[in-house]
């Protein structure tokens, strides 16, 4: 179904449109004219070519579902009410939350939805023209070609301060372990097909997001049993009833996340970073944060035979406010001027001595100072104006600044309207008082132990500070070159806990060299107010010399363990990644070895050859022969001949 084109657009994209127009089904054409009023979109469509394209391919399918009221809601419902189908299925939202210790969490949330399509094969072939409105053109083929029903991609870097900042944003569902993490639900007839599709998917994503996701091979892929499960009430459609759904997961620990990964993220948005909250997304600021996480979730939602894709693109950033503000003033954090020193007057203090005061608790800043940019107007694509909410306690003042004047609202949520540049202003007399953070139900840290280069240990500390037991699933995927000994599993506990007290069930799939990783999943209960450590030992394998990465070798990254809390709350988080040192050869060694062995072989060959070819004689015989054959011997022979030559005439004369 295609939309009539408004006059302002045609000249910009005439050729494309004329081609498209040939495909217009006239019946639907008239339908649309009847019940669709096309108004405000056009006003937004004059900025640039990109947007004209969107307009020209305009969207029209009404979607019946309710508006998603709570963005954090676990329940997945259709996002967009299209009773007045005037807008595109796109919604953006920025949530700001000051955290303790002078940090600010900014959560950029984008929700997109694709056109409906029919899962009926015959239907699809009839209508082979797929239509993309705001939904990125690159995502649908990716899902279609690999039969993927859900794909989840995470780029995370930095350290989330669980002790001070509490739980991760969105209860951890939108952030991965340090590096890249990918999991997907793939529909396939069997295991092997699923894996092939998975490889295809990871290769496609790799190209799309400029990351080494294609390095997720069978040795890095696991099939999670009880982690990474879809949310409650979430149904994953099966297009072919004889197929099955497969959940695959892989991660690249400490894959550097940088601007070249974020640029594709922004490109997927219809606003392309030029309108709405996406204008704030500046690589310099996002990647200069204490913690950031970029996530994409694409899911297939079906109702009888008609389906559509929903995409959530979240970018969460925790920024240390004073550092960031100071950096814009002084890019190099040189020592401050003596007059600006903040000294503790209660302690000894003079012109030479200054005991530093803690960071000032007064806070006063604008969003534009932190991100270096303004919110450049509302997105004009969807019926939902760009919204910015600030979650603060009462001692904070949150204002929106438009055209030099400040406004406030009761709920601290601001709709960005029109094309004016918006800015958010935050002020407080005590930055330590923030909207109370929800404490993490459990803390898990993990570290490597051991001394030698041939074996080591892995130790995970579980701490439950709450007064109720916590049920969780502990998921670990370890590379094959860590030869794990599950029999060495030990628990260290001051309160005398036994392994059977905490581990309810274990799923263990041992590694196969170069083929698959160790896959461990524990279902555990952490008793209230308890701390214990689980540890096990492993052997370090020797790698073939070509298996060492070609780049500078400082060790092998071990991906983070995933902790999925089931009760009392639903929560998910990752431990830190680890660095495993394997014995690394000196790579010039092979050449030394080659030289040495060649010499030895030459020597042995020479000796052997001599023994085979030469005759064994006694010393006397040898001496005799030497006199005959050696240089000296020859000389003697010649001499003798010469002597004979001159001596011969003599007897004749006699």
């Amino acid at each position, binding site marked *: 179904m295609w939309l009539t084109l408004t006059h302002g657009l045609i000249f910009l994209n005439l050729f494309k449109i004329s081609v498209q127009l040939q495909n217009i089904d006239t019946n639907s054409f008239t339908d649309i004219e009847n019940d669709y009023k096309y108004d405000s979109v056009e006003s937004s469509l004059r900025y640039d070519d990109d947007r004209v394209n969107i307009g020209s391919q305009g969207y029209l399918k009404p979607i019946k579902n309710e508006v998603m009221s709570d963005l954090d809601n676990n329940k997945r419902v259709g996002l967009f009410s299209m009773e007045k189908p005037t807008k595109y299925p796109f919604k953006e939202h920025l949530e700001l939350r000051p955290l303790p210790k002078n940090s600010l969490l900014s959560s950029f949330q984008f929700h997109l939805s694709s056109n409906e399509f029919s899962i009926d094969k015959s239907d699809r072939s009839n209508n082979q023209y797929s239509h993309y409105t705001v939904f990125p053109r690159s995502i649908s083929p990716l899902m279609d070609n690999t039969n993927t029903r859900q794909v989840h991609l995470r780029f995370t870097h930095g350290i989330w301060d669980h002790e001070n900042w509490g739980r991760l944003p969105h209860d951890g569902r939108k952030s991965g372990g340090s590096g890249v993490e990918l999991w997907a639900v793939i529909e396939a007839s069997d295991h092997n097909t699923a894996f092939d599709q998975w490889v295809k998917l990871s290769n496609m994503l790799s190209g799309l997001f400029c990351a080494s996701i294609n390095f997720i091979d069978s040795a890095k892929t696991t099939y999670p049993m009880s982690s990474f499960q879809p949310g409650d009430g979430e149904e994953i459609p099966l297009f072919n009833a004889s197929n099955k759904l497969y959940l695959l997961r892989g991660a690249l620990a400490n894959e550097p996340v940088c601007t070249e990964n974020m640029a594709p993220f922004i490109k997927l948005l219809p606003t392309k970073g030029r309108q709405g909250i996406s204008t704030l997304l500046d690589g310099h600021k996002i990647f200069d944060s204490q913690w950031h996480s970029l996530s994409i979730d694409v899911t297939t939602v079906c109702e009888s035979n008609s389906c559509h894709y929903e995409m959530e693109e979240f970018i969460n950033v925790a920024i240390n406010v004073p550092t960031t503000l100071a*950096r814009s003033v002084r890019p*190099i954090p040189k020592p401050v001027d*003596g007059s600006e020193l903040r000294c503790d007057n209660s302690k*000894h203090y003079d012109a*030479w001595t200054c005991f530093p005061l803690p960071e000032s608790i007064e806070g006063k800043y604008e969003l534009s100072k932190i991100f270096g940019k303004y919110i450049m107007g509302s997105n004009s694509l969807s019926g939902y104006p760009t919204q910015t909410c600030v979650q603060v306690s009462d001692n904070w003042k949150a204002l929106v600044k438009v055209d030099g004047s400040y406004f406030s609202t009761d709920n601290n949520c601001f709709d960005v309207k029109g094309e004016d540049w918006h800015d958010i202003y935050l002020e407080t007399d005590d930055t330590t008082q923030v909207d109370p953070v929800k404490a993490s139900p459990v803390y898990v840290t993990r*570290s490597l132990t051991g001394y030698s280069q041939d074996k080591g240990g892995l130790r995970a500390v579980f701490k439950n500070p709450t007064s109720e037991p916590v049920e969780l699933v502990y998921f670990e995927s370890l590379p094959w070159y860590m030869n794990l000994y599950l029999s060495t599993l030990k628990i260290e506990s001051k309160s005398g806990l036994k392994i059977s007290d905490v581990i309810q069930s274990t799923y263990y799939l041992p590694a196969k060299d170069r083929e698959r990783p160790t896959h461990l999943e524990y279902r555990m209960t952490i008793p209230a107010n308890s701390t214990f450590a689980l540890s096990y030992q492993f052997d370090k394998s020797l790698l073939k010399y070509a298996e060492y990465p070609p780049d500078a070798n*400082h060790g092998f990254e071990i991906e983070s363990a995933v902790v999925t809390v089931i009760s009392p709350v639903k929560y998910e988080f990752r431990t830190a990644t680890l660095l495993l*040192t394997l014995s690394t050869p000196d790579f010039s060694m092979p050449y030394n070895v080659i030289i040495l062995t060649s010499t030895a072989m030459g020597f042995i060959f020479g000796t052997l050859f001599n023994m085979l070819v030469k005759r064994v004689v006694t010393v006397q015989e040898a001496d005799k022969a030497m006199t005959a054959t050696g240089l000296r011997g020859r000389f003697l022979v010649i001499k003798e001949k010469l002597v004979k030559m001159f001596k011969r005439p003599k007897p004749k004369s006699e």
Partner: protein
Amino acid sequence: MAVLEKLHRRIVDMGLVPRIIASLPKISIFCALLSISWLTLFLPLEGQYRRTYISENALMPSQAYSYFRESEWNILRGYRRELENLKDLDIHERNTIVASWMEEYGAKTSINTNNQYGETLYGIVHTSRGDGTEAMVLAAPWTTTDGLYNNGGAALAISLARYFARWPVWSKNIIVVLSADPQASLRAWVKAYHTKLDLTGGSIESAVVLDYPGTNDYFKYIEIGYNGLNGGLPNLDLINTAVHISEHEGMKVSLHGMPFVELSQDTYKLRLKTLLSGIKDMTLAGIKNTTGHEAFNGWRIQSVTLKAHGQDGPFDVTTFGRVPEAIFRSVNNLLEKFHQSFFFYLLLSPRSFVSIGSYLPAAIALSASFAIASADSILNNEYSKLPLLSIYNIWALFAFAVALMISFVTAEAFAYMPLPSLLLAFNVALSFISFTVIKYKIQKPFSYRFKAFAHLYFSIVLTSLLVVNFALALAVGVLAFPMSLTKTTTNATMQQKLRNSLLLMSSNPFIASWILCQLFEAQLAGTSLFHSLIDAWTQLGCWTWYVLCIGWYPSWILVAYSSIDSIPIVTTSKKSY
């Protein structure tokens, strides 16, 4: 082959082999002399050593401007002033207060309590740009090696970490460690870090220990400590970086306690002195008062100690702080572990070194001299034609096993009951065994075979030790050398007996090392050497005690036993040929 054959025949023709065999004792002594002169006469010569250089290009020492100056100075003094007030507090209270300071600037702190060696405070500055899997350690024990309150060092560590926390450049976490002392307590922390600590910051790449006692603002020169336990040395690149940075800041660098006046000279004598004191310090690493960096030995951590010397001088305490700052900036640049430069070397001055290829001949010659002495005991007597499996060889082997057992028992028993005077007295008595045991005579072939086994074993010990711990191998080899000069006697004269006994006494592992320490190491006066040896093993894992007991002592026991007056025996076993 023809050349080799000719050579062989020429040797046979000239009758060199018997001549060589006859002069084996002389060759043995020659090897020992060669070893010592190689080290002392040859290596410090101009042209025989090399100038140091930064091998790993990524290090780039002093390429970034160091900003630990100006108002950081006030803050450093602020912390130092407060630390002065905390001086008399209980260590736990002090740690708690300092932990709160460190928390202020965002470090995560934790106190590790070791019941035996006191508690250690450490704080981790997590850096946002790094991946959190690697760390650099800045350590400042509360008391220095000399037993002083490390006020300056601790204040530097705290204020440097505060300053570091502001910088976005770090790719590795920064860990500040404040331990009770630079020895057992710090070692216990490092051990705990790799086994049982809950708060960790990734694998440690390098460690810098700060030693700046007192509240004086100025110092004169800097000393870099680097000798690790059991012969372990930090990568030469780290030392080069530290030296380069210190000299870049204008300071003179001292090694092995070289006094200030000698720092600006570069003479043969001083190079020799540095070399020899380096070997001495390396031999006694862990036994002598440790400066702190030894604690990090193992686990592939490269570590150095920076020690400020002198109360007056042109250099300010922040200048001292800029050295670890620049070292951290350099190490931070590394993408790999330290691997480029040398791990085995001897320093002749801060800027010159000899690598393993150049100094190893000295130790090899020494171990060869013992092997030759062993060959001498087999070949140069009337019993040289005894078959391999003769009763004498078998009994000698058995005797060796007994000696080994006795040595092991001695080592363990002494560790439980350290009675140094008794040990020394017993060994002196044992040295004079040929005087006390008069009625009993040893069979002459036994005397030779025992010595052969003793020297062979000792040679093997030296050979296996010389790469791992060159200094110890050399020291042990030189000290034990008189042992190979003892003679088998028949109806010995008083003079012969005395000669043997004196040689034995001077080559006894305990007596010799004790005498050496009395002469050259003021820190180990009296019998403290033996306590230190045991402590070094139990606290730091330094195996010198066992090298003495199990490597050296069994050989000595055998030689001592063989020095008992012997009676010749006519061996009939020749027939079995």
